[in-house]
């Protein structure tokens, strides 16, 4: 029961949606599939909150046990609560929500990834070496594309945008297409394994 029911549910919903794409199933394709899509959105909404529930559990534990730097967990929970409750009551166009989003959330998220600009700079200087022929080809191609993509490249030599375009149209497209075809096969096989209940890693390895 515990094993079979979830696997049967996965199989039925998976096969139904798969066949619906290829075969016109009378009644089912018009009515049931649309209904199931609506359901999936709603269940996904519950799953969205589940992530937050998990975080809530971990940090409540840290606060109650007075773990190291428990105040950070407290800040986290307060932020979570305010960010959830305010728009729930007054919609996302409310001033408090907009304030929190624009001034705190956006700056934190944006800066987190802006850090990477600095890391690229320091890695460029310290770690990106023409250690192998492969790395050499990669770095030359990178430099051509960087000069081709910025206005200054064209100033230095009008060939940069041209050759950068050529390189990307032919080689980047070809390489990415090869990878894409292979990865698509991988994705199809993985999805089929899941639908047939052979691969249960989605259920946490049980």
């Amino acid at each position, binding site marked *: 029961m515990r094993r079979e029911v979830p696997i049967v549910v996965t199989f039925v919903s998976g096969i139904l949606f798969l066949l619906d794409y290829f075969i016109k199933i009378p009644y089912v394709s018009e009515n049931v599939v649309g209904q199931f899509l609506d359901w999936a959105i709603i269940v996904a909404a519950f799953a969205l909150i589940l992530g937050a529930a998990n975080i809530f559990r971990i940090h409540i534990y840290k606060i109650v046990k007075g773990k190291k730097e428990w105040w950070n967990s407290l800040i986290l929970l307060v932020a979570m609560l305010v960010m959830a409750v305010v*728009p729930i009551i007054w919609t996302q166009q409310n001033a408090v929500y907009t304030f929190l989003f624009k001034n705190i959330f956006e700056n934190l998220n944006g800066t987190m990834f802006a850090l990477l600009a600095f890391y690229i700079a320091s890695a460029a200087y310290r770690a990106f070496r023409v250690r192998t022929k492969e790395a050499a080809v990669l770095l030359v191609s990178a430099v051509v594309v960087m000069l081709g993509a910025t206005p200054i490249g064209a100033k230095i030599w009008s060939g940069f945008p041209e050759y950068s375009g050529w390189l990307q149209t032919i080689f980047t497209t070809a390489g990415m297409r090869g990878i894409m075809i292979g990865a698509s096969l991988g994705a199809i096989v993985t999805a089929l394994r899941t*639908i047939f209940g052979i691969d249960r890693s989605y259920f946490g390895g049980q």
Partner: protein
Amino acid sequence: METVGIWIGALCTLAIFSFLLRENPFFRTAEHLFIGLAAGLGIFYGYQTIVSNAWTPLFNPDPGEARKWFLIVPLVLGVLLYTRFLKKGKWISRIPLGFLVGVGSALAIRGVIGASFMSQIVATMELPLWHTMAKFKIDAILFILGVIGTLIYFFFSREQKGPLKVGASIGKWVMMLAFGAAFGNTVMARMSLLVGRIYFLLGEWLHIL
């Protein structure tokens, strides 16, 4: 109020940037704040979707609208997801999860098989060998060899010997050129983010831009 907001934003920005010098308490607090706000957003949008797509059509339909009784099913399924926090009934949460995963897997196949698999093969074979794609007459030959070579590189059922080795080697060099281009593009993306941050610090905060 706006000035206060910008000052808070600047403090947040600097707290994160301080990570460049070393990991420190300010960074950790900022990181926790960020995770909290992101989780809060998740709760809000989850709630919003449940109310607008399930609760209202089920319990408060507009006058003239039919009550959608079926929506009781996803509401129950959704609640069942939370049995994972129980000791005994944990397995029940796999039923709604199985539904999501089943639908998701099927949609993944539906999407991938056309646009990312077949369409990519067809677009490659449509090219005549002697054809200028961007610059030279041999473009199409290079392109087709590149696609085939990359596929051969990822072929694992035979040792790489003879023609397979040649093919895989072509694939490897084409991929190096491709990843080089990807490298260049990534630099561009990351620099854009930094430009955005510096706009904020120097423009909105310090008003020197």
